[in-house]
């Protein structure tokens, strides 16, 4: 596993990965659709895949003493490490946001711990689409990214739309009021904190299982690909 990751970071990582990590600064915008920041992680991964393609990475990797399945694993590990590293940056930025800004977010879910659960869900959508579509042929990264971008923005639209609706209808719908008081806010009580941690946990679990399913699907698809 170590050598696979070493190969990915040494030969395949695009420098834009660092640049796009600055997207976490979006968390400091007073009112914003914060989940959009996750899209830029996908963009950085796409750039790395593109550069890998132009460097015949698929062929080089296939010739190493590993199976095709391990070649796919190599990419999934690379993607997961970048995404999990970004989750740490996002976590830090949520605290910075809380220290600097106090207004509620009118454009979606607040920059609160629950947002991390949302980020896991966005990454799940990205992993469920981008990588299997890429491994369908092993080189059409642009097409895979277009499909994943549509899926990610559709998800963000629905997810953030839900929290905008919750904010607007909190006064009349008790469920939305509960959401506003426990999820879409900085946790003011231990129960609210617990709900938000559960939300993060659920996001993490979904991320884990979706990525695992996506990996299995990609292995199956890549097995059929002629390099």
């Amino acid at each position, binding site marked *: 596993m170590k*050598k696979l990751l*070493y*190969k990915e970071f*040494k*030969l395949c990582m695009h420098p834009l990965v660092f640049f796009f990590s600055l997207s976490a600064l979006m968390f400091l915008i007073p009112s914003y659709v914060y989940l959009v920041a996750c899209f830029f992680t996908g963009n950085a991964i796409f750039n790395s895949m593109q550069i890998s393609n*132009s*460097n*015949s*990475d698929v*062929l*080089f990797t*296939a*010739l*190493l*003493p*590993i*199976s*095709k399945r*391990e070649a796919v694993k190599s990419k999934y590990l690379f993607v997961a490490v970048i995404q999990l590293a970004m989750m740490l940056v996002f976590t830090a930025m949520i605290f910075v946001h809380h220290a600097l800004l106090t207004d509620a977010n009118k454009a979606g879910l607040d920059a609160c711990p629950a947002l991390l659960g949302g980020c896991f869900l966005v990454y799940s959508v990205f992993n469920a689409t981008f990588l299997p579509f890429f491994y369908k042929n092993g080189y059409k990264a642009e097409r895979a990214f277009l499909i994943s971008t549509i899926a990610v923005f559709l998800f963000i639209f629905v997810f953030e739309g839900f929290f905008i609706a919750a904010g607007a209808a909190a006064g009349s719908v008790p469920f939305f009021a509960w959401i506003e008081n426990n999820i879409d806010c900085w946790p003011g009580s231990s129960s609210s904190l617990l709900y938000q941690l559960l939300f993060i946990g659920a996001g993490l679990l979904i991320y884990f299982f979706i990525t695992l399913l996506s990996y299995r699907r990609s292995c199956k698809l890549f*097995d*059929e*690909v*002629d*390099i």
Partner: protein
Amino acid sequence: MNLLSVKSLRKQYPSFLLDDISFDLEPGCIMGFIGRNGAGKTTTMKAMLNLIKRDGGSVFVDGMDFFENESECKQKIGFIMGEFNCYMRSKLKTIADVTKRFYKEWDDSAYKGYLEKFSLDENKKIRELSAGMRVKFALALALSHNAKLLILDEPTSGLDPVSRNELLDVLRSLVEDGTRSVLFSTHIISDLEKCADFIGYIKNGKLFDFTDTESFRNKFMLVSGEQEHLESLKTHLISYKENAFGFSGLIKAEDAGLFSDCRTAPADLESIMVYVEQEEEK
């Protein structure tokens, strides 16, 4: 035990069929894989290494089923496909540093030795190397992990005659101790004359012949004669060319008696391939 055993390898494309490719390669041998462009040489090599999904057949490396033990078998194989065109902006030492981590028997001193032998500067980037130097770098990587089987697809194409000779010397010295083998495809047939023990000739996706180089050569003879003899002997010629003095062509050695009025000479590999391929077009 054979170092490489390919049995009934098959790959079907919509417009091409690689069919029933079978051959064995013993340790200590160099096998030249010949055939014209598109005959199926690269497809065979790729199917052997699971780079393309085969539709049938099996491959054994050092007695192990390749498709059941892919990683382990690949440890024993050095494979190059022409020049090294990966990671153009990376330095040679970076690529070697990554590659060596995957091989249990990576030999750093052998690698350094090949760098020196091929005059490669490991601080250079791939894109700074000429096509020939890229082939040499691919070779250095393929030769540095103590591979028992080298599979080389067109390794000599981008090399100048001196470098080609150097490479052939390296290949010969590698198989000398009788533990390693080389399978290499080329259309520079003169390279095979110098070093191949066996010839695998692939034609239209089928193995036309697989035998030791001497026997392969001895199966054919070159013939040249006057125009007046051509008409009666035409049917016994594999193929021929007419010229101002008469004709020249290729015959099966067993038919040599029929050509007593003509001049005959031993056939070289290149002539055999050219005439055999012409037979198809005839």
